């Protein structure tokens, strides 16, 4: 959607050179049209079968088939869930970020709230979401579907919202002033300034969010809530069923399919989107290497696509701009007070008091829920929090220990990087949870095997954040500094001490910060698992949350969630934010 919103502003309808000339005259244009049409038919059939499944009667304990031939359909189901959840996430995040950035009063509440929401693991939302959805649609599968989508949504939305918010806050002053002085209306300012400026951040965070969606897919498609067993046909439930039956063949088929889908998505969607987003880089000079993606060129050649774009999308968006421009003309009268917030205090009061009443209500109920817990429960909770704390940080340490040297090696050596980077990217995009059952097969018989497995899963899920940041940091170290360290014959130790570690420090902190939050969230799937017909778990806050959710112990679930959110927010505030400040002052590489 944002893509069209931006492109539609162009009076010259198409990016010249890329589309028109080559597309119209290509001999293969007809075949490409045909391909696109076949694709559309396939998509229509997919929508049809999804509709049939969603609108069908509710099947509470649906049997998840283990036939490999069902996998394409299951993959489609999961893909649609993740895509719908992502679409909602994006829409919600844009609204949330926009409000947080444009109203100072809302900002005070919304930004810290984001911090807290981000630290709450997916499963903690599960009981509330599921009970509400099943109550709303007692006889239809659609209730379960929406519930599952909402769960995926809660794992995807927060970082996109934060990215949009922080982009909006960093729009250069003179650009904002230009928009005011030339009387941009709200819509035009959003479409021509806010959204394009935020696009690159949105794209990268969307990739991270969708990866998170795959990571937690197994938890979101199949779960027990008290005495009720919820299952939705999909790739996640397929994998989970295979794991709990110990069906190695099915497991491998499932993992293979998931990897295939993710690699395909990466090639067909994310690569082209990243290339396209390059247009929105806020830079004065064009960067050297320009690569073109085959899919973009491919679509560009289909005259079918061109026509749809030219005759449907473009007119719609210019109409929209003009409709809103009328509003801009009226708004121009209040020109000299562009920032003056319309003071309608009563709206604020009503909103504020509604929020307060809701909060009071929630706190009261939460309090009475938790009041039933005994002292032993609390000490058990705190002990498990301590265990997870140790596990998370051990995983971070191990992650840093291997990623720093490898990342620096990749970053310092362009030729090596060209080979390694795509491989690493594919490895990183495979959700560790899908591999987890396979790993468990080997580790389960060992002493302390589950402990290793839990840490291994956290590591698999989060080490990539560190690795990518270290690579970026190593690449950002200026060549003249590297040359200086060579000329003065720094030894290996001096090189690391004076050049590499300070150079990558800001990037390392960013990577560790993201990884730390991710590892805490991953603990709910890492510490507790249905495997070969039984539950394997290791003590920790994550397994406490999973077990509480399984057995319907809402009081423990609530208390554990509160503890986890508190711990994560505290670590962020006390440790990461300080390191971050240090990184952005002392270790900033300035020209």
């Amino acid at each position: 959607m944002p893509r069209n919103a931006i492109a539609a502003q162009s009076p010259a309808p198409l990016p010249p050179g890329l589309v028109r000339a080559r597309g119209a005259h290509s001999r293969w244009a007809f075949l490409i049209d045909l391909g696109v049409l076949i694709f559309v038919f396939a998509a229509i059939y997919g929508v049809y079968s999804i509709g049939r499944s969603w609108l069908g009667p509710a099947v509470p304990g649906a049997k998840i088939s283990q036939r490999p031939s069902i996998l394409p359909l299951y993959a489609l189901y999961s893909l649609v869930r993740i895509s719908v959840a992502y679409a909602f996430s994006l829409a919600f995040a844009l609204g949330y970020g926009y409000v947080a950035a444009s109203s100072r009063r809302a900002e005070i509440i919304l930004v810290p709230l984001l911090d807290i929401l981000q630290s709450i693991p997916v499963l903690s939302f599960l009981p509330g979401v599921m009970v509400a959805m099943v109550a709303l649609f007692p006889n239809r599968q659609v209730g379960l579907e929406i519930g599952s989508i909402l769960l995926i949504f809660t794992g995807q939305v927060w970082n996109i919202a934060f990215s949009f918010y922080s982009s909006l806050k960093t729009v250069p002053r003179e650009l904002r002033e230009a928009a005011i002085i030339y009387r941009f209306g709200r819509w035009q300012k959003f479409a021509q300034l806010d959204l394009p400026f935020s696009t690159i951040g949105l794209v990268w965070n969307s990739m991270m969010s969708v990866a998170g969606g795959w990571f937690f897919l197994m938890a979101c498609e199949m779960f027990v809530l008290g005495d009720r067993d919820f299952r939705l046909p999909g790739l996640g439930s397929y994998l989970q069923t295979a794991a709990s039956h110990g069906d190695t063949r099915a497991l491998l088929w499932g993992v293979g399919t998931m990897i295939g889908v993710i690699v395909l998505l990466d090639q067909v969607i994310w690569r082209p989107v990243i290339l396209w987003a390059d247009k929105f880089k806020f830079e004065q000079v064009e960067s050297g290497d320009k690569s073109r993606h085959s899919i973009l060129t491919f679509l560009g050649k289909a005259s079918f696509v061109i026509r749809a774009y030219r005759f449907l999308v473009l007119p719609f968006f210019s109409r929209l701009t003009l409709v809103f421009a009328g509003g801009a003309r009226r708004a121009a009268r209040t020109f000299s007070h562009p920032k003056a917030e319309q003071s309608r205090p009563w709206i604020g009061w009503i909103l504020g008091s509604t929020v307060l009443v809701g909060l009071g209500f929630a706190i009261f109920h939460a309090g009475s829920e938790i009041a039933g817990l005994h002292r032993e429960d609390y000490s058990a909770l705190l002990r498990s929090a301590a265990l997870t704390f140790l596990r998370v940080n051990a995983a971070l340490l191990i992650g840093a220990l291997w990623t720093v040297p490898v990342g620096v090696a990749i970053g310092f050596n362009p030729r090596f990087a060209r080979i390694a980077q795509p491989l690493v990217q594919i490895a990183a995009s495979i959700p560790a949870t899908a591999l987890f059952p396979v790993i468990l097969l080997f580790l389960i018989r060992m002493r302390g095997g589950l402990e290793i497995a839990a840490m291994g899963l956290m590591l698999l899920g989060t080490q990539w954040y560190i690795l990518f940041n270290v690579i970026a940091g190593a690449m950002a170290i200026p060549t003249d500094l590297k040359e200086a360290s060579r000329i003065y014959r720094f030894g290996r130790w001096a090189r690391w001490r004076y050049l590499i570690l300070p150079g990558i420090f800001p990037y390392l902190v960013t990577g560790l910060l993201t990884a730390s939050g991710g590892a805490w969230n991953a603990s709910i799937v890492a510490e507790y698992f249905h495997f070969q017909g039984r539950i394997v778990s290791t003590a920790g806050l994550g397994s406490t949350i999973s077990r509480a959710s399984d057995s319907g112990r809402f009081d423990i679930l609530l208390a554990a969630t509160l503890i986890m959110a508190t711990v994560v927010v505290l670590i962020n505030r006390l440790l990461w934010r300080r390191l971050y400040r240090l990184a952005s002052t002392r270790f900033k590489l300035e020209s």
Partner: protein
Amino acid sequence: MTTSTIAVEPIIEARRLEKYYPQPDGSRIQVIAPTDIAIFPGQIIALLGPSGCGKSTMLRMLTGLSPVSAGSVLWHGHPLSDESPNVGIVFQSFALFPWLTVLENVEAPLEARGMPRLERDKRALRIIDAVGLDGFESAYPKELSGGMKQRVGVARALVVEPEVLFMDEPFSALDVLTAETLRGELLELWLDKKIPTRAIFIVTHNIEEAVELADRIIVLGRNPAHIHANFTVDIAHPRDHKMPEFVELVDAIYRALTKPDHAGELIPASEGTHATGKKHIIMLPHTRPGGVAGLMEILADQGGKADLHQLARDLSLEVDALLPAVDTAVLLGMLKVEEGDAIITPEGQEFAAADIQQRKAIFRKAALANVPLLRQMEQALKAKANRTLPAEFFHDLLDEHFSEEEAHRQLETALQWGRYAEIFDYDASTGKLILTES
């Protein structure tokens, strides 16, 4: 553009325009002292002054981008808040939308006014043609050179047919040759009446640029900003930089800029006053000691006396670069400025001839004798048993006299000087000042 046109009614009139930031303790930080400015049709007005003196804030208040603290801005006699003035601004950083093509950038303001597509295209293409951008309509800004980018900025500003064209340091991000070309083109558009704009208001720190373009030059003094001098330019276009009256005027402006700041001698009617009620604290010019040393050496080489304008020209420096060094040398008693001439003092002579270590000693003596802030800092450090104080302590002191940003710059300058003079040492990682034991 003669003085006779001034008889007509102004397009914009600012009366007792002020900008200040109220402080929690009830006092205020005055950024711009009460100032009167009028923009008349048919004139190019240049607002000239060293950087950081409040020129840009003034421009933003006149356009309505920044709210005024006191006083009023009138457009054709009506308050700005009731009008929707038709203006364009050309920004120093160009402020183009990098994701829009040249044509889209220029059309964006028209689109905002709800103009239909065909009309939009027609107008935008006409103005793109006029500024010499034809052929670049579908290019993205990052593909263009700085000069071409600013042409887009000018086209975007002119496409709305603004009554007043505002320009905020429009040429200072460009190289000298490109800037000269663009100035010439702007004058051509203006003098040949190819654009419907009735007045141009340009903010600059470049004296020659102001003299080349403007019919009237307003020189701003700073801390707080106020009108320091006012010049009318009666030289016929095209104005050659080597013409005697051109050079003479540039000299006169130089003299005004270097003159101790007793505002009001030249234009008593609209002078500004120092509205701060606090005890006066000397504002340090933002220079590094190395710059002062360089200036003294050059002066000594030239026999101890030089015309400032000539000097700036020889060194191809703009006011911004030269004046702070001159101010510093004057403050330290190494230099005197008389009628636009810089004359070296015996102390300055000694400083210029000394080696590195001696220079530091001379600088130290001069700094402690003439800069109250450094003296204060030394005394405060001496009063402490461990001879150590956090830099924040001094920052808080400066905060009472300057805006947040200026206080920061003042402290930074003081740290530079103090370290060079070996009065104290500063540890950036702990943020602490330590007295140097001699």
